[in-house]
């Protein structure tokens, strides 16, 4: 929480998440393909890489297009992260934390679903597998806000604003509890 008071740290987190999100979305299909190819060839990475390069624009494979399709929801999420976290520095640390947890929820959904689909279609390929690549961005664009909402909910539950301490009646002489200074998120 103290770290988030430092605007440089928050900027660093925002920029890392922003570019990480874009790079992950673009490269995930390729990484899965090359890793699977290397495993199939008992560690021959160069062969797997060459095959990936050949299939980048090859008819029937077009891994470049698959990468772009996968990247679309991640780019949308990245822009959201940049605008949402990038403008949060002046806010209360609790609000920044809740936003971060919301973003983390969105990222978990996006990364989890995308990785599951790409690993699944690579390990168990079939004729209809390519349909998954077309529907994945649509599902992701619908589920990312849901992940964010879940994250915010978790944040709201776990990061409650500290209750103000009851003041000692001897200190202020009034003998009553203060009900001020409770910050609403």
């Amino acid at each position, binding site marked *: 929480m103290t770290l988030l008071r430092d605007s440089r740290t928050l*900027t660093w987190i*925002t920029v890392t998440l922003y570019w990480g999100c874009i790079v992950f979305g673009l490269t995930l299909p390729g990484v899965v393909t090359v890793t699977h190819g290397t495993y199939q060839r008992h560690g021959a990475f160069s062969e797997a890489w*060459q095959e990936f390069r050949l299939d980048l624009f*090859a008819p029937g494979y077009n891994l470049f297009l698959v990468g772009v399709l996968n990247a679309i929801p991640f780019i949308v999420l*990245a822009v959201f992260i*940049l605008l949402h976290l*990038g403008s949060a*520095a002046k806010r209360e640390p609790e609000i920044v934390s809740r936003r971060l947890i919301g973003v983390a929820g969105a990222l978990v959904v996006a990364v989890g679903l995308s990785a599951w689909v790409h690993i699944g279609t690579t390990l168990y390929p079939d004729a209809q597998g390519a349909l998954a690549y077309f529907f994945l961005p649509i599902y992701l664009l619908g589920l990312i806000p849901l992940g964010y909402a879940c994250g915010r909910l978790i944040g709201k539950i776990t990061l409650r604003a500290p209750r103000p301490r009851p003041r000692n009646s001897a200190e202020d002489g009034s003998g009553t509890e203060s009900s001020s200074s409770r910050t609403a998120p």
Partner: protein
Amino acid sequence: MTRRQRGLHLVALLALIGGLGLFYWQSTGARAVPALAEALNDEDAKVRIAAAQTLAEIGSGAGAAVPGLLNQALHDRVLYAGTSAARALRNIDLIAARQVMTAYLPALNAEDVQTRRSACAMLEGLGPVARPAVPALVRALDDPSETVRIHAVGALGEIGIPATLVIPALLKALHDPARAVRQRALSQFAFSIPATEAVVPHLKQLLEDEDRGIAALALSALSSRQRQAKDPTAVYVTLLQTGNASDYALRQLAQIGPEAADTLPVLIPVLQHQRSLYRYLAAEGLGAIGPGATDAVPALIATLQDADSVVRDSAADALDAIGTPEARQAAAAHRHSEGSR
């Protein structure tokens, strides 16, 4: 983060998207041809195969790669690399594809079984462009080698035209002593050659075959015929109108023959298509329709001036098949002028 910093990151993202677009633009279409032509000389057969397949997708815009593809089709030691090059050539340059066919035809009579098998596979790769090879492939059905007969059946199915020669040959293959040859012939009727009335009794007979695979294929072929019994051309007309799988649809129409006479309004405009393979198949289709395609005579006479000699010859054959005095006269004049050239 300041507003300026956020703006800079967004601009950087736009630059990345632009860069990716540029990379895609440079790596696809006719712009990729020089790099793909270079890849045809790669030591790795997989690279050569992938390059040939991508060039086939590019089609007539890949003319610069024809020498490399011709070399690969005629001399590559890996058969699949050669057949991939042949498939690409049929989409790019019909004359070069016919050169490959001419080079491999004598190999059908070679002593070595593997050479005969490779020749069949290459002719299969050329598809309907290898139509002049059909009589030789029909003779190859009597080859003593089962492997050669299997590949000859595959080549006949892929060429598909003229149906008047191909269908009787495949019918004969349905009764081949080797089960693999019978199965290959049957799969042609199930998936690529429309079964005619003459084929139906043979298919019904095979429904009772002890081999479940053969019986299932026979059932599939009969079902396919029943589905299209009402209007055999409708699905192909739709494919042509939507611009999908045009070469497949045109070849199917050419196989249907006179029954496809109602497709003239769709076939005639294809004679002007930029892809020579489509123009060739449209001319073949009109020729297969025969006298019913009289309305196509003016368009076919215009096609006698086509830039591609294979298309011109096919148009002349179609005019002969239509048989009106005007059509015959135009075809004869074309042959005379081609002969004097």
